[in-house]
């Protein structure tokens, strides 16, 4: 599957990928060279995905924001990941039940709850009965 990103430069496959005969596009179609082959890889970037997955504690976000000011590598990675997050969300099915299904759901629910309610009454009575017995005993103790 070869998906083009909206707003990205036209598909630029890096040479390595071509060699692999892999039809995968480079991440977000951007042209920067392989970051791992460069000296300026930053270990902080390992934190980035959990940051955008928002399991983030505020403190780590604050830390990374300050870090971005001095590290363009992390900054770039961060924006790439944000775009990927949008892609993820776009590709999750979010299907709603149609009107007929909602109606039948409502009917089933109300039948089920009616049964629970009638059962609840039977469950309640002995409790009240027991309460009376206990209060009866407690009056005897005085």
């Amino acid at each position, binding site marked *: 599957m070869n998906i083009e990103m909206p707003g990205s430069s036209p598909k630029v496959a890096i040479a390595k990928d071509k060699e692999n005969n892999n039809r995968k596009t480079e991440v977000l179609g951007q042209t920067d060279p392989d970051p791992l082959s460069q000296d300026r890889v930053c270990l902080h970037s390992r934190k980035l995905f959990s940051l955008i*997955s928002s399991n983030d504690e505020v403190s780590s976000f604050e830390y990374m924001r300050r870090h971005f000011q001095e590290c363009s590598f992390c900054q770039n990675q961060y924006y790439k990941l944000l775009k990927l997050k949008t892609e993820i969300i776009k590709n999750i099915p979010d*299907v709603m039940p149609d009107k007929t299904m909602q109606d039948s*759901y409502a009917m089933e*629910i109300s039948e089920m709850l009616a049964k*629970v*309610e009638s059962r609840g009454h039977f469950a309640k009575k002995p409790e009240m009965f027991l309460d009376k017995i206990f209060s009866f005993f407690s009056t005897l103790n005085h």
Partner: protein
Amino acid sequence: MKILESFLLDNNKIFFGFAYSLLSDDLQAQQVVIDAIYVFTLKRQDLIDQLHDDKSSLKQVDVLAQINKFILTQIFSIGQKRIIHLKNAIDSDGSFLAFYEMNMVKRAVIYLKYKTQTAFSEIAEIIDVNEFELMGILSSAQKNLIENLGYDTKHLFV
């Protein structure tokens, strides 16, 4: 009973959406939701009683949250049993293929994470793993989905 009923009606979209993300079939999804609620009415009389005995709205919100979690848990566990019979029927129309190429646990995590307000700790409970394991599942699910969409993830620390 009115509170519970309107709560269940309001939340049908979340329940149904979640079940659909697992099963990719609307009739099956609806059935799983109804079965899950049925199990809830059988097994959690305690929560139903709490809801009616305690009229303070703060307490009720808390009980409804527990009910919500219980039903999502049931949807997941019933859905998991049902998927075995449905394996070949999954996503015949080809939409959201990248999503449905993932296994059910990953689908559940991605759906709850991105489409609902479910807290991380609750997602862990619903799919019955600890939070550390959930972290691993979430990152490999995200990676899978991105790769299934055709992106190269080898430079990304997902």
